[in-house]
């Protein structure tokens, strides 16, 4: 699904971000194409979350320009960022309460449906965020990000802190939603499984800019030492083998 003539939905150009004297990004360029799932990887403290915040507009770059062409965006923050004074269903329905003319009951109906979509039943919807497990908070936060039918979502470590089974289910959910709704997804992750399972392209953030952005197979071949260590270290190797076995199996069948 290559659409070369279509404008990218998000363009970051020549971004430099400084906090005091420490430079986080320097002359960074990034394009995100409509409808793709882009994985953003990088070492801890490389500025992935800052880049995400810059793209959303929560953080103003020192220099450079951000063009976001999405009509509606949704954001899943790293720790969910559910409002602690409201029930989960109210959290999800809040954007509808505030920005649409829907009645309260109608908004809550849609919120409960979105919660069910991410796998939370109505009992969970009546609880407060403090009473939920980490995985449930992630799911509820995703439901809130999706409630206004955005055309682009930003996910900050969506599967961090989830068990492998839940993480895989979360990946599949994001993948099916993205393909069905034509969602553009930008996700920050440390989860190699997520990268292999759902990302169309992978961007590597290191040395203050994007050093590689391409399909996972091509990025993994990049000669940069950090990329080699990341994708061909003990963890990366195990997952590459597993996935190549899987594709071999499907090819046989």
């Amino acid at each position, binding site marked *: 699904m290559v659409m070369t003539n279509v404008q990218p939905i998000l363009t970051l150009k020549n971004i430099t971000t400084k906090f005091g004297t420490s430079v986080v990004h320097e002359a960074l360029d990034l394009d995100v194409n409509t409808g793709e799932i882009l994985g953003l990887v990088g070492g801890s403290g490389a500025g992935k979350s800052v880049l995400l915040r810059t793209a959303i507009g929560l953080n103003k770059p020192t220099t450079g320009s951000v063009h976001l062409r999405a009509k*509606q965006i949704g954001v899943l923050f790293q720790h969910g960022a559910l409002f*602690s*004074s409201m029930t989960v269903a109210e959290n999800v329905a809040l954007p509808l309460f505030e920005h*649409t*003319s*829907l009645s309260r009951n109608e908004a809550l*109906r*849609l919120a*409960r*449906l*979105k919660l*069910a*979509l991410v*796998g*939370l*039943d*109505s*009992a969970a919807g*009546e609880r*407060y*965020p*403090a009473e939920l497990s980490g995985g449930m908070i992630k799911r509820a936060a995703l439901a809130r990000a*999706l*409630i*206004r*039918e955005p055309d682009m979502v930003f996910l900050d470590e969506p599967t961090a802190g989830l068990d492998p089974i839940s993480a895989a289910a979360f990946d599949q959910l994001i993948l*099916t*939603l993205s*393909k*069905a*709704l*034509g969602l553009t997804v930008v996700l920050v992750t440390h989860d190699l499984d997520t990268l292999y399972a759902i990302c169309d392209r992978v961007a590597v953030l290191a040395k203050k800019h994007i050093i590689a952005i391409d399909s996972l197979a091509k990025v993994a071949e990049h000669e940069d030492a950090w990329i080699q260590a990341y994708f061909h270290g003990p963890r990366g190797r195990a997952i590459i083998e597993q996935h190549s076995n899987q594709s071999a199996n499907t090819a046989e069948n």
Partner: protein
Amino acid sequence: MSDSSFVAYDSSKQLLKLSGAWSFENYSAIDKSLRQVSSQQPIQLLDFAELERLDLNTASLLAELISPTQLKKLLESAQQLQPTHRDIFHQLLRAYDIQAQSEPQATRPWYSFIADLGAWVSKLGYQFIVLMNFIGRVSLTMLQVLPRPQRWRITSWFFHMQQAGLAAIPIVALMGFLVGAVVAFLGATVLRDFGATIYTVDLVAFGFMRELGVLLAAILLAGRTASSFTAQIGAMKVNEELDAMQVEQLDSVELLVIPRILALLIMLPLLSFISTIAGLLGGAVVAIASLDISSTQYLTILNEVPIRHFWVGLSKAPFFAVIIAVIGCLEGFKVTNSARSIGEHTTSSVVQALFAVILLDAIAALFFMEMQW
């Protein structure tokens, strides 16, 4: 955006034709046009040929109109349904399945307020037991720690003395000064009618030495320090630091509570002294400036006030200090794992500490009066 642009009903074939952009901006319009196709009319066929866009919210409108089970059936025979739209309907029907599986919420009967009242009373009783329990635990730990200077947390102790005591001096002094001035004015207004303006000095002196000096300092600490203790310990609780302490076999009472109590035990009497002096000064300024009492006269009358009143007042300070610190810390420990809970317990801690201070002061006043001290 005319209403007919989203759905059309063909009654001869019982066919519902969906068309146009079923996107979320058009949600209300689609809802309206679906309502016009009344649910009384039977729908046996769905035609998606002219459907351009679909999202989950708008798809749920169709499901609400003809019920999810019916929708599932009709989708099998649906005409010209795009694969992406079929995926959306599948996701939607899966969501309805999950909703159907969950148990319905029990509704509360009208007389539930009786149960609420009972729960509230038993909670209050339980809170009192928890407080007593905590005071007992703190006392035991105190007995264990005090004889062993190597277990004193000197750094923490001095830190809290600075935070709760030193940093509070300006505001305590200002409050004492202003209240002293106000009491002097009040006394002057009332006593002038009896020609006893001179007794204003006694009023300020007795008032501040016995009651107001220590009470003002304690009230300020109840608001300023009890809340900060609760917030500090509560934030640690939310961050699981208290659990980490327990796992490392560190006693949170010894590490967190004892230094705070000891800090207040030292600082509250000192702050009370400052508050008393400031109050007397405030009285003096009013007396000298507007009541024609000279400074020598003021000091002479002050000298005649027996010093035991000062000690009676100051003797209450350690009790206030302990109760403020204990309530502040205990409310911190009661915080559950959310930011909201910190706020609730901080409020509760200030209210309880103020109440305890004033209750203790009332009991002490009765006691001292009966003892004729």
